[in-house]
């Protein structure tokens, strides 16, 4: 290739690029407020984020704009949403958040989906001063992380409280003589599953339980029947699985097939998904799982109805509500300050109490202690049975067959 030809091609290439980057600058109307968001639409975490994250972002933007926009000092401003897919890949995520901050120059960013992504993105939020109200991020390092990143907030609790919530349920049942002290526990051999099982072992043993069955299975195991058969062969009245979405479904399916007769059946992530009830119907009556809501408050009823109406699907019974609440907090803080001053908004979040669909939420050292840890399917609704500082917990019922 000669020099002139090369130059011509390089120019053509650069022109294309410039045109492409121009395309990303959509109408620069002064009366809108730009809000960015990055979360998986493809890849391993997409299944969860398309249930708990994206519909709530859409719902919130829809509602605010329907009201005429965010109330700022200079009048109402509609939200212009700029959304990117991170493909469940940290490198893509970091690039996308940088793009939002320095190219799209968005005014605020909605926190990412998933523990790893919230932590990987935290340095960027913190560098540009964006408040980051993390929801789907469960860690035992909240103290260290909030100290490091002064604009990072947590709302869904830490690992230990999840296990402690379930332990409290079991202790109460054991003390009233409804279950024996033997537990069959399994976990998916992957990050969060290992972490939860690790926290659970000493906690349950200290509470006087005996782990008569303690097994793990690799992520993506297609056949879980040996696990359920093994647990069934023990004397345990309680079955606990620190599971991920695919195996939550797989274990339940095997329990139905084997007619696994236990009094307590617990699976972790995705038990609160509407699809779980959709698949098993009445068979999962009294199954316990991670999360929960109080569906009986007026705010929650209204939220669930609007969610179905606007997005066409039901919210889950756990992180959906927290995600929407986090957006309400962001909204109230922006309106409270009345202008695009990110530092002021961050400080506003730190020092105020917010009315949300989950009731009043405030932050103590950037951490909200208002969340559900254990829920139970009761007559087609996944109700919270153990919470941290939320009213409306119902009594736990024993599982009675798989009908």
């Amino acid at each position, binding site marked *: *290739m*000669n020099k002139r030809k090369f130059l011509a091609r390089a120019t053509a*290439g650069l022109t*294309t*690029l410039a045109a*492409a*980057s121009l*395309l*990303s600058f959509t109408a620069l109307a002064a009366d809108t407020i730009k809000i960015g968001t990055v979360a998986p*639409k*493809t890849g*391993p975490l997409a299944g969860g984020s398309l249930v708990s994250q994206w519909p709530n972002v859409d719902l919130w933007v829809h509602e605010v704009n329907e009201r005429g926009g965010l109330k700022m000092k200079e009048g109402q401003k509609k939200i212009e949403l700029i*959304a*990117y*897919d991170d*493909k469940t*890949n*940290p*490198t*893509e995520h*970091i*690039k*996308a958040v*940088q*793009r939002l*901050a*320095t*190219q799209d120059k968005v005014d605020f960013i909605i926190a990412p989906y998933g*523990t*790893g992504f919230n*932590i*990987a993105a*935290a*340095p960027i939020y913190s560098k540009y001063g964006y408040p980051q109200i993390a929801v789907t991020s469960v*860690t*035992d*390092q909240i103290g*260290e992380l909030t100290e*490091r990143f002064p604009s990072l907030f947590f709302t869904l609790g830490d*690992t230990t409280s999840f296990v402690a919530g379930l332990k409290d349920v079991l202790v109460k049942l054991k003390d009233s003589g409804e279950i024996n002290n033997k537990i069959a526990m399994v*976990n998916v*051999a*992957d*990050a969060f599953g*290992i*972490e939860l099982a*690790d926290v659970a072992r000493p906690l349950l043993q200290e509470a006087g339980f005996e782990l008569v069955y303690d097994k*793990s299975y*690799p*992520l993506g195991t297609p056949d879980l029947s040996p696990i359920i058969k093994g647990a069934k062969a023990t004397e345990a009245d309680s079955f606990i699985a620190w599971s991920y979405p695919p195996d939550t479904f797989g274990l339940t399916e095997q329990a139905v097939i084997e007619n696994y007769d236990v009094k307590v059946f617990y699976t972790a992530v995705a038990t609160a998904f509407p699809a779980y009830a959709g698949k098993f119907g009445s068979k999962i009556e009294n199954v316990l799982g991670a999360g929960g809501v109080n569906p009986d408050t007026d705010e929650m009823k209204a939220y669930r109805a609007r969610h179905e109406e606007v997005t066409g699907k039901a919210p889950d019974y756990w992180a959906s509500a927290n995600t929407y609440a986090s957006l309400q907090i962001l909204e109230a803080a922006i309106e409270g300050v009345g202008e695009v001053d990110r530092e002021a908004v961050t400080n506003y979040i730190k020092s105020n109490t917010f009315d949300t669909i989950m009731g009043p939420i405030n932050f103590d050292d950037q951490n909200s202690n208002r969340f559900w840890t254990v829920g139970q399917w009761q007559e087609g609704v996944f109700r919270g049975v153990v919470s941290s500082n939320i009213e409306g917990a119902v009594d736990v019922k024993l599982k009675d067959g798989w009908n």
Partner: protein
Amino acid sequence: MTGQGFKSLTLIGVLVIAAAFVPFVTNGYWLSIAVTAMMYIALATAWTLFSGPTHYISLATGAFFGIGGYLVATGMSDFDISFWVMAAIAPIVAVVLAALIGAATLRLSGIYFVIFTLGLAEMIRGLVSWVQNNFLGSRGLYVLTDFTEEHIYWMLLGIAATVYVIGWLIDRSKLGFAMKIIGNDEGVAKHLGINTARAKVILFMITGFFSALVGVIVAPRYSYIEPNLVFSPEISFMVVIMALLGGTQRLWGPIIGVIPFILIWETITVSFPNATTLYLGLSFLAIVYFLPNGVVGLIESLTKRGRAS
């Protein structure tokens, strides 16, 4: 030839110095693209070191990269070892692993090696999860350091430059000469008395060392490491695509491949956020079909034709 070689080394030297100034010119978005590009330049150059002369498509990059990232994370989180100590240990572990894999598969013909590396990242991820599950427990692996994007960029640039210089030296050594013969005809190489297996294993170990080192440097950028994320097969394929786009006959080929690929990829991501995997597949097909020798091959055939006419 020698004169040409030094000329290309000087050119690369100038490029490295120019690249070192990138963080002073820009930050934020373009710097984050530059960091990503530099990561792939280092990985693809290391890949070409082995796969260029041998013509073995190695899909082991993800495995080595993962070992680097994972060991740093587990060392810092589970054992409170400093980043720098882990940065020294992780590549050595990768070298030992490369030696074992190489010894087991490189004595056979290429196809066994390719198939083996295809499953390698997944196998190591499984192994790591098993160890975590049975011995270590997992508390979430955090790599919290004070490195900024600038620091990571410069470290990656340093690795890329080192890989290039090592490749340049190998090219001029007995080993490089042996590799060229092996690449052209392994049977002939054996008849000449070249220990082909040893030569291939040594080169594979060097590739493993630098791929793991890149994983080490990128770990602080991810901050939170899950085996799933660092042992991703995607990275192995991306590296192969970029290296093939550039062309593997020259060590500087990958540099020419990575930069346009990253920019095109970015444009696709922004414009068609819901169809990126489709475009990744299409670009793979297009490269193999239209540019079998990469951009470097295209440039060289064009210059040859230009000279002939």
